[in-house]
């Protein structure tokens, strides 16, 4: 009897403690997030300061390698995604516009949405998933096999040796890839406009160039640079702080993709809001 009463009392206490426990857990998560963000920003600041050493032969070679990995090796997937994004956009908007006999305006609809939003956004997502995850996996493997510790002991700062070249490569290559995505996206829209909606390619292009402003391009490119910095920071931070062997490397890779996606969405929205409202 005594036992039953005690158990009921405990259950009631657990029930009462539940909000407190949840609140405590939430607090711990927020503190951890702030801690990680602080460290990631310190790493970013340190790597930015080391950009002055980029002319050293080894840093130059490493940056060139990272530019090649980020740019050339991502071209295939970016080409396919950009073309189809433009085609889907043109098809969806074109079908709606045709109902009102306004299909010649698909040029402007595709161009503005691709240059302003979809170009940097799609490029960011592709680079985060391909290059960002690869950076996290590489640096994570180095961390668990003590290669990062070896660099530190040799007085070689990992922020200079590893983070800086990747940061520069992503910040430089993202706008270039975004321009490429924009061109292919608009081209994809043009193909659909010509073949499916009966709009001449010249009319499509005229319409696209008439409505898209220089500001759209500049804001899109600014987003691309910011997204590049975000991907490099998240990937390098996750990689360098990897622990617990192969499981840790997997976790760092997954966390890189998720965090980069979320930050690209949030920061993309904030930049749009800053320049257009």
């Amino acid at each position: 009897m005594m036992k039953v009463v005690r158990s009921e009392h405990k259950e009631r206490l657990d029930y009462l403690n539940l909000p407190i426990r949840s609140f405590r857990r939430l607090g711990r998560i927020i503190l951890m997030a702030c801690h990680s963000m602080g460290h990631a920003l310190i790493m970013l600041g340190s790597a930015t300061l080391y950009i002055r050493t980029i002319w050293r032969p080894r840093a130059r070679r490493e940056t060139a390698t990272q530019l090649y990995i980020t740019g050339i090796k991502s071209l295939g997937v970016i080409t396919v995604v950009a073309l189809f994004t433009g085609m889907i956009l043109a098809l969806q908007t074109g079908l709606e516009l045709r109902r009102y006999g306004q299909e010649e305006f698909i040029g402007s609809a595709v161009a503005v949405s691709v240059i302003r939003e979809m170009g940097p956004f799609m490029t960011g997502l592709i680079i985060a998933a391909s290059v960002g995850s690869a950076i996290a996996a590489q640096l994570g493997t180095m961390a668990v096999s003590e290669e990062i510790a070896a660099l530190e002991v040799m007085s070689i700062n990992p922020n200079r040796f590893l983070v800086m070249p990747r940061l520069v490569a992503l910040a430089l290559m993202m706008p270039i890839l975004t321009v490429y995505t924009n061109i292919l996206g608009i081209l994809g829209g043009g193909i659909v406009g010509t073949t499916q909606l009966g709009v001449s390619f010249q009319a499509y292009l005229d319409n696209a160039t008439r409505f898209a402003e220089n500001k759209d391009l500049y804001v899109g490119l600014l987003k691309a640079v910011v997204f590049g910095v975000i991907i490099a920071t998240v990937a390098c931070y996750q990689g360098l702080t990897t622990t617990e062997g192969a499981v840790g490397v997997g976790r760092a890779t997954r966390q890189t993709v998720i965090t980069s996606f979320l930050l690209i969405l949030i920061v993309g929205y904030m930049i749009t809001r800053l320049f257009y409202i």
Partner: protein
Amino acid sequence: MIAFENVTKKLGGKVILDDVSFEVPKGETFVVVGLSGAGKSVTLKHMVHLLVPDRGVVRVGDDVISEARGPELERMRSRFGVLFQGAALLQWLSVFENVALPLRENTKMGEEEIKKTVLEKLSLLNMQEAAEKYPSDLSGGMKKRVGLARAIVMSPEIILYDEPTSGLDPVTSRLIDELIENLRKELGVTSVVVTHDLHSALSIGTHIMMIDGGKIVENAPPDKFIRSENETVKRFLESQYITRRGAWEKGMEGHG
């Protein structure tokens, strides 16, 4: 040369080092032995600030390395060479580039001088033939030898070895033991060796310290170490067939 003063370290809620104090004398080969998970590698990592104590300090000469930051820490670390357990070679660099890395990054040496120094260190470890190979082409033992060449390439005052002979064949193990011994005798290098291999420890060590459960259970020269009255040390010696009659005498009783 290196001094631990009341160092305590917890990892994952578990006490790894519990109020540990000892000193590594200059020019000596100080060997740290103990069972797996006893805190040997953690001790080694404290010496180069890869870990910092929760309590206590670690000194290197007059410097407190456990509290150093930035350029000051880099200066203190430049006195060390470290051979990591898995060698920790950078996978995308060749053997030559791995060994040349500290020279290229931290000195103003010309390429000719770097080449001469690197090949000299590689030949000390019979690895000059593998200079153009990549770490993925090497066996575990070869990687370790390259890691050792990298650790000594800057001619450091202090060299730390984390399990230098584990997983190596007996011939290569003796080669590495001889190298550690020669560095001490000829260049007066201070060495700290973390190992399970008591035979190696007794042949190269001038001091042997055993850690168990985060505490130092013995710290003595080899001849006194093998005569220790501590039960943990006795069991550890017996497990490797080393008796009190002599460091090299295997206890063959009951082994045919």
